[in-house]
């Protein structure tokens, strides 16, 4: 079968005599990879870089004729991030946590991340106006306000991190369940998630709400994860997803403390297998030294107390919080090994690959450069067994992996690494190779007819590590795992057309003056701030 590309799009036919021809026979051709959740830009990532000179020291890339130099293993510099993703055949990245106040910084770094198209999600689960609107039951006003934020920050989707908990963290506390009240706001996490889910529907946003659950990283939190999915069950329509639980591995712990901590993957998989309104991503853990960074301040503080490592914690004014702690996941730690097992159990026990996607929550579970290794774990029982034999005894005994025989096919890998992610993100041009799609193509040098991935997993890993070709927007940017051309990608954002005007009222302007360090007039990104914007026009129902 031939694939024709013209003007950066996949087309029906092209004059072969005039075109450049790439012979991909005996190779696997996939759409360019899509990463739904990777921290690659913004204040948290950059503070992580500042915090960890030793992370740069251990991984250095020299400049070449076409690429710039760069450093960093778990938090590489922006250019290097783009190159490394491109070498693995990825072409679209989603940066999941942007405090609206830091939108400028985030977009500036995203613009310096070459080779890929990107977008970023503003953090809205603890944004004061959202909390106030939802408390007063003003869903439509809240929707108009969210539409304004999307335009003001050039955002793509609604990101909710530990709803209510981050606001409480500003006062030194946290919320422990979906029905705890957020101090000073008289609202519960359940109301925030349900409210923003309704807002998401009213605005017709391409992606669902993107939720990092309450109680993340605590034993017994799988109950919270299931309750979070349940709480928007009645809002679902025609089997369409309306909630995305991100890095689900960190929300799937069973047990009452760290000594009894075990996997809750089975229960979560059971729920997801019976319900169609949920999508997940893995948040797989890799045994390595990495840098954890989330907007979940209280969780990061807990991690600091556990590890005793250096740490950063931050309260972003009225919007959100953040924290960074370097962390080493160890094979011989029962908890870390169980975490490793949970991620894979989730992916293997959830029957429909369109519901779960491959991520490491880069860099929280491990750097994105480990995706090829995860692919081999998914495709080969032998590869899994090899690692299981090396992990902590108790974790090995409790792991469900030994009893799971499922092995992913290349088609399923294509779904969990690109097609599924593009679908749930509403990026219709990505994750597919139909006529009219963006010409983002990854070609891997492995013959699916000759190579049995369950046995020759090392060969598969090598192939996915270094794409034979990566084509971005119709141009060959990677050949044999080396960058041959650098391109700068587009930045997607949602331009929501509402009938209500996209402005905040005088009361809110007054609050901006009183509580923010940035004045309302200076707050939104102006037209022309992004050099390569790709607004997606959407008509809202308000």
């Amino acid at each position, binding site marked *: 079968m031939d694939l024709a590309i013209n003007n950066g799009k996949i087309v029906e036919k092209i004059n072969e005599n005039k075109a450049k021809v790439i012979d991909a026979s005996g190779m696997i051709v996939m759409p360019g990879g899509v990463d739904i959740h990777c921290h690659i830009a913004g204040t948290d990532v950059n503070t992580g870089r500042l*915090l*960890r*000179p*030793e992370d740069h*020291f251990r991984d250095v890339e020299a400049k070449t004729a076409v690429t710039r130099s760069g450093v960093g293993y778990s938090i590489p510099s922006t250019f290097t991030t783009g190159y490394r993703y491109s070498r693995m055949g990825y072409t679209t990245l989603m940066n999941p946590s942007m405090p609206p106040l830091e939108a400028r910084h985030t977009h500036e770094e995203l613009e310096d991340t070459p080779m890929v198209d990107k977008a970023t999600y503003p953090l809205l689960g603890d944004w004061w106006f959202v909390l106030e609107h939802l408390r007063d039951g003003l869903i439509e006003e809240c929707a108009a306000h969210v539409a304004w934020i999307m335009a003001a920050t050039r955002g793509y989707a609604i990101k909710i991190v530990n709803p209510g908990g981050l606001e409480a963290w500003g006062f030194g506390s946290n919320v422990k369940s979906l029905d705890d009240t957020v101090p000073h706001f008289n609202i519960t996490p359940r109301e925030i998630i349900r409210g923003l889910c309704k807002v998401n529907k009213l605005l017709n946003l391409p992606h669902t709400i993107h939720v990092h659950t309450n109680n993340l990283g605590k034993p017994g939190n799988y109950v919270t994860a299931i309750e979070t999915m349940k709480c928007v069950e009645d809002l679902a329509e025609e089997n369409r997803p309306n909630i995305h639980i991100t890095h689900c591995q960190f929300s799937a712990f069973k047990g009452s403390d760290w000594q009894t901590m075990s996997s809750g993957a089975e229960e979560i998989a059971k729920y997801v297998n019976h319900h169609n309104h949920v999508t997940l991503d893995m948040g797989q853990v890799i045994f390595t030294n990495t840098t954890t960074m989330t907007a979940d301040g209280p969780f990061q503080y807990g991690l600091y107390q556990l590890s005793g490592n250096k740490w950063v914690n931050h309260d972003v004014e009225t919007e959100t919080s953040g924290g960074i702690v370097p962390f080493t996941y160890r094979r011989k730690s029962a908890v870390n090994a169980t975490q490793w097992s949970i991620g894979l159990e989730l992916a293997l026990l959830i029957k429909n690959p369109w519901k779960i996607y491959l991520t490491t929550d880069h860099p929280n579970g491990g750097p994105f450069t480990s995706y090829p290794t995860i692919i081999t774990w998914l495709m080969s029982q032998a590869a899994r067994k090899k690692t299981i034999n090396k992990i902590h005894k108790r974790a090995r005994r409790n792991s469900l992996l030994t009893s799971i025989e499922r092995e992913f096919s290349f088609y399923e890998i294509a779904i969990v690494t690109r097609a599924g992610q593009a679908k749930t993100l509403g990026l219709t041009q990505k994750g597919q190779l139909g006529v009219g799609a963006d010409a983002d193509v990854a070609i891997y040098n492995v013959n699916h007819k000759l190579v049995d991935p369950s046995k020759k997993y090392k060969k598969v890993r090598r192939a996915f590590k270094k794409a034979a070709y990566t084509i971005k927007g119709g141009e060959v940017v990677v050949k044999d795992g080396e960058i041959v051309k650098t391109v700068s990608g587009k930045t997607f954002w949602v331009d929501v057309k509402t009938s209500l005007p996209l402005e905040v009222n005088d009361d809110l302007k007054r609050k901006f003056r009183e509580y923010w360090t940035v004045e309302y007039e200076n707050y939104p990104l102006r037209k022309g701030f992004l050099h390569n914007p790709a607004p997606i026009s959407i008509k809202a129902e308000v």
Partner: protein
Amino acid sequence: MVIILHPKRLFKVPVEAESISPDAFDEKSVNEIGMLQVWEGKRKRILGELFKIEHKTDDASEKTTIRISGDVSKVRRIGTKMSMGKIIIDGNIGMHLGEEMEGGLITVTGNADSWVGGTMKSGTIEIKGDAGDYVGAAYRGSTKGMNGGTIIVNGNAGNEVGCFMRKGLIKVYGNVGQFAGIHMRKGTIFVQGHSEGRAGAQMRKGKIIVCGNIPSILPSFTVESIKPKVKIDEEKVAGPFYMFVGDRAEGGEGKLYVSQKQNQHLSFYNKYL
């Protein structure tokens, strides 16, 4: 074999010379050694451009010995990751001497700059003169310091000697600056001379011996007893010494021995014994 390097000129900008190590020189001819790569500032050079290289075989030793005579105080990272052989430096030497060293011997007749034996794993470094800051320390931001081997400084050493040290022995026969043994995890630091204070800050385990004067002990250390002598490997140092344990702020169990005779101002600790 013995290789002698003479700098051809005075270096004005730092020279990064990871390739000057017995492992890199081993079984190479003078011409081949001359082709090894070094950086002078931002410029890529070959060793032969910067040094006159002399080959002597009359030495009976089988292992490669490198002798550097001349001013190399701007040359960094000599002996990085070396695992065997000998480097002898007649004069002063620049930063990061013997970084990540895995074996062998380095001798410096003059002074050494900072980061001597940073993150070294094994082997011996001996400095006849003074050493700069961060002797046997971890790389910036890292928690993995010196992990074995011996560093001997006959002169003075600077601040943060043995930062994040995990194993091994550092002996300073002169004085040390502030924060000797900061973040120390294990291992031994022996100071014959005085300390500028704050010794053992945030240490968790290990041993620091100060035979000279120390202005004060950190408040997060508790006095345990008076010891007549302290053992360092096979050797015994006569005291008496106050033994402090800390850093309690880190839940540490490290031991800080301070000479009783040299520190009369610490006599108020006697009432806590």
